[in-house]
Every structure is written in structure tokens, then in C-alpha cells.
């Protein structure tokens, strides 16, 4: 709990936090600790369980979460990342990736290790979309979407070619693993076709 308060009290805006984005890790630890603590307290323990029961380890680990949340927070606060941002590739090797990265960097907030946030968001968005449409659409279409989306998020700039490639990859997987090895893949809207 101390980290959140520390953050608020010390929280000189902008630059101070920007060099300490690593604070998400102690925050995460704190969250895990709280979840474990609440779960341990509300746990349904069967009667007649001898000590040490099912609560002991969760308690120990919850405490460890709080301890390491504080230690990590101190570590991150005392060792901020360098002020300067990693050099940007103005004229780097892969041309397609670049053109996009250049305009992306104007929009995105700069971090110490340069993180390409639009690319990460596009990638995670693709994965979420895949999970949502997998059951209704079936493997073939959602698998194609996944390949296409990830390739695009990672810098491919040939949407039409990618679309054909994605469908090919997804079909090969469907044939090899569903028909060949007998894995259970959802057929979705194309149920009757295969």
C-alpha cells in the first residue's frame, strides 16, 4: 500500500514518473498480494483440517508479495532509468517498419527504452479480437485474422498479400492438426465446409 501513497505524495508529474514506469511491477505485486489476502480470508476450508492447512502458504506468499512490492518500489525509485531515450531509427534497415514508426513516435510518449506503443496496442488488440471471434467464426477465419493482425502490428505493409498468406497458414494448420492429428478446433460458421 505504501507505493501508491509514495507515488501520490512524491508524484512530481511527468519526468519523474516517466523515468520510473517500472513502478507498474510493484503495483502488480501489491494487487496480487491483496487478491491473495482477500482470497485467504474468505476461503472455504473444510472442517477437521490439521495444521498446516490450505491457508498457511497463501498467507506466507501474500506477505512476500507485500514485502517485495515495497522492495521493488524502493529499487525502482532509487534507480530511475536514464533520462535520454534510446536512439530512434530514422534510416533503419527495414523501410516499411520505419515509415510508420517515425510518425508513431511523434504521437507516443517517449520512454527510456523506446517502446512502440501503437504496435503493442495493435498486437494486443488482435489477440483480444481473436479470442472473441474464435468460437463464433471458427478456427479458419479467426486464425487468419490472428496471423494477419500480428504480421501487420509487427510492421508488414502488404495487406492483400498478407490476407492470402494468413488464409493459407490457417488452412494448413486446420488440415494438419484437425484432420491429421485430431486436435479439436472450433469449426464456427464454416462448419459444413470441411
Amino acid at each position, binding site marked *: 500500500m505504501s507505493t501508491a501513497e509514495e507515488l501520490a505524495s512524491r508524484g512530481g508529474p511527468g519526468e519523474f514518473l516517466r523515468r520510473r514506469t517500472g513502478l507498474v511491477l510493484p503495483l502488480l505485486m501489491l494487487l496480487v498480494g491483496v487478491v*491473495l489476502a482477500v482470497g485467504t480470508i474468505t476461503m472455504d476450508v473444510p472442517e477437521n483440517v490439521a495444521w498446516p492447512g490450505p491457508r498457511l502458504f497463501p498467507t506466507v506468499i501474500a506477505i512476500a508479495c507485500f514485502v517485495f512490492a515495497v522492495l521493488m518500489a524502493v529499487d525502482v525509485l532509487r534507480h530511475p532509468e536514464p533520462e535520454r531515450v534510446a536512439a530512434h531509427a530514422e534510416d533503419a534497415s527495414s523501410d516499411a517498419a520505419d515509415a510508420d514508426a517515425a510518425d508513431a513516435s511523434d504521437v507516443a510518449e517517449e520512454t527510456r527504452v523506446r517502446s512502440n506503443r501503437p504496435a503493442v496496442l*495493435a*498486437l494486443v488488440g488482435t489477440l483480444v479480437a481473436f479470442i472473441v471471434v474464435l468460437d463464433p467464426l471458427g478456427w479458419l477465419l479467426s486464425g487468419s485474422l490472428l496471423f494477419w493482425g500480428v504480421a501487420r502490428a509487427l*510492421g508488414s505493409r502488404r495487406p492483400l498479400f498478407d490476407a492470402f498468406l494468413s488464409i493459407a497458414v490457417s488452412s494448413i494448420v486446420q488440415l494438419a492438426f484437425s484432420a491429421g492429428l485430431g*486436435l479439436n478446433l472450433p469449426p464456427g460458421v464454416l462448419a459444413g465446409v470441411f
Partner: protein
Amino acid sequence: MDSLANLGDGFLTVLTPMNMLWVLVGALLGTAVGVLPGLGSAMAVALLLPVTFSLDPIGAFIMFAGVLFGGLFGDSISGILMNTPGNSTAIAGTIEGHKMARTGRAAQALATSAIAAFIGGILSSVLVVFFAPSLADLATLFGPEEYLALAVFAFVAISAVVAESLVRGLTALVIGLAIALVGVDGMSGAARFTGGQPELFDGINIVVITVGLLALGEVIAVAARRGTRQDTELIPSGGRLWLSREEFRLALPAWLRGTSIGVPFGIIPVGGSEVPTFLAYGTERRLASRKPGSMFGKGAIQGVAGPEAAGNATAGTAMGALLALGLPTSATAAVMLAAFRQYGLQPGPLLFERASELVWALLASFFIGMVVLLILNLPFAPLWAKLLKLPRHYLYAGITVFAMLGVYATSSKLLDLVLVLAIGLLGFAMRRYGLPVAPVLIGVILGPLAETEFRRAMAVSEGDPTVLVSSPIAATLYAVLALGVGAFLIQRRSAALAKAA
């Protein structure tokens, strides 16, 4: 001589056309995944776990043997040619290997590394064949206290050694222990942290965790780095692939020294091959500096030979420790343990009795796999390097598709896909802020074991905690651990001070 007879039977099992095909497939897949930057053996095995469902256990494990060592052969290729090691185990060999490639000796560096991987792997497998059965006999003496001590040893050793700071290593370990708590507690039947979801009663599947942390985390990290300048120039490798007599004379002792450095580290749980490979690199460097004309810094062949042999030797004996003790000493071994469990097998002393056919077939396939890999890697290393010329976005898109396929195929649960995405984001955050991934896996795998053994010991002793240190084996383990970690931390501190001064 029992070992030899058993090994002979193992060879007979493996040397059928179908099983040889699995070795070959495994070696090809393992090398291919190993060549890709950031992906290594552990991830390759995790991705293949669901795919091998329909195989019989022997076929599956024969394939895993190929994948496991294939990953180790492959990870040095991208390191030598592009200066982007395929895996952390290849970093030490890359330092001199890439310099060799820059001075026009790429082919020789690749050959040195392939032969090194072969020698390290073969010699450590021989040791495993002869000593694993006796190690297993020793382990039958182990009770709950000893197993708890082994688990604690693994926790502390891996957290102390792998991370740049003890706090970060232990933080990663705690994350793993917390993840492992989800599910129904086996001893009391209480549901823990499942949120009432029956889908979580069995806990979070290890495939979900490894694929999320190792594969998806890396793909997200690749996306985050997109657009930053990277030194990804691929150096073409041409010319003669064999070593000259002079090069051979330099490399041979380094191969053997590297192997002897790597072998003991397979049994100590320090998270795999990072430590032995760097030790081997340091040793070779020091030995070379005693003689005039050291090539270190300009592409020394010993600098490739030593670390690569050490890395594979560690992987070999780590498999021995896993089979005989049931104790994973590296991330890769942890994933292999998950593979055994998936087939209802528990590595450890009893495995040699209950599934001796499988164990010996697995050991025999180590040897066959090593020969196959040498053939695949020595003449064809430049071909493997072509894989690096494929556009990166297609390679990683393919990896993502296989990762999601594998996770879904294991359970057919959408919840697992959500979990793998969440763990992938966690893996990315850990990479971004310098937390090691290996302690998480060790925590997930050994956490439940530690808890069960602790509670068993307590139940037997009726709550008397001194039982934990009263057995001589357990007490020795704790003492060795305390001494080892103490010495390691002091050495690191003095190294840090020397650097600062």
C-alpha cells in the same frame, strides 16, 4: 553394466523408422525455433506439448529430445551471424563468435559451435546413462524433508543467480509461487483463488504459463522494439565449413574444458546454462591471455568452443537430474517436467522402475538426436541462417498462431486464451523492467511440491518444525545453500565495487 544393456534396449526402441522420423522432426523443429532470436528450447517444447497429444508417450519424448537439443544447436547461429543470440544460453558464445564472423570466419565459428554442442551433449549424456540410476537409488532415501530442502535450494539458487539483483529474482519467484496457488488444494480439498470458476479448479495449466511468458511475452517485446535501430545485419557465411588442423588443436581442449565446466551445473538448480557458459568463456579468456597472441577480442575460436560445449553439457546433465530426482534445474527442464506430468508420469526415483522402457528410449534418443543434429547443423548451418532472412513479422505471426493453437488445443477453453494473453503481458513487463523469467517457472513447478512436502513433514512430526533440519541430507543441503549463496553474493558485491572503483 546394467546401464549398457538397458541403453541397448533403448536404442532398439528408437531405431524404428517411425521413431527415427520423430527424432528428425524434433531436431528440425527445435533448430528452427532455436535460430529465431529470443526463442529457445523451453519455448519449443512448450509449443509442441499439445501437438504431441495424439502420439504415444515414447514417440513424443523421442521428439522432445530432438527439440530440446535442437534449440541449443540453433540458438548460436543467429548469435554468430547477427549478434542477436537466440537465447540467453548463447550470449557467452556470441561474444567471440560474432567477431569471428565479422573477420570472415563465419563458417568456422558455426562449425566450432556445432561440434562443441555435439561434444558437450554426448559426454554429458554418457555421464547421465551411468550415474542417473545410482542417483535415482540415492533419491529413494529422500523423504518429505529432503524434497522440501531440494525445492528451497532450487528457489533460492535460481533467484540469486539468474537476476541482476536478488530482489528482482525473488520477486519473480514470488509471482510464480502465487500463480501456482490457484486451484483446488490437493490435501484438504479447499478451492483456492478460483473465484468459484470450475474451470480453474485444476489450476492454471503449465502450457498456458510457459507459452504466455516465453512465446507471447517475446512477441509483444518484438512489437515494442519495432522501429528502434537494431544491429540486424546478417553476415553471409561462406567458404570451408571444416576446421583446419590448427583450429582443431585450439578448439579441442576448449570443448573438453567447457564440457567439464557445464556438467556439474546441470545438477545444481541455477536456472540453466547462463552461469556455466559465462564461466567457460572467462576460463578460456584467462587461459588464452597467458600465452602470447591471444585472439580474444578479435574472434577467438576457444571463446566459441568453451561456452557452447558448457551449455549443452549442462542441458544433458539437467535432464539426468530431472529423470533421477524429479527436480527441474532450468526453465527447459521445468517444461519437460510438465510434459512428463501430461502423460501421467512423475520423474524421480520410481520412474526408472515404472517406465524404464521410456526412460532408456529417451536417453538413447539423446545420442541419436545429437548425431542427427550434428549432421543437420554442420553442413547446413548456412541454410538455417536463411531462416533469419524471412521477414520477421511473418515469423513471429506464425509463432503467435502456433502459441494460441497450442493453448486452445490443450483444453478447448477460451479462459485459457485470456489467461495466456494476461501472462504474455506479464512476460513483456518482466522483460521490459529486467525481471528474469526462469524463477517464475521454477516457482510454478516446484511451489506446489514444496507446499505438499512441507505439510506432509509437519503431519508426520505432528507440528514439530525441527524435523525439517534433523535429517542429515536436508541439513547438508541447507548448509551448502547458505554457503553457496553467501559466497556468490559477496563475490558479486566485490565485483560491483571493483567495477565502480
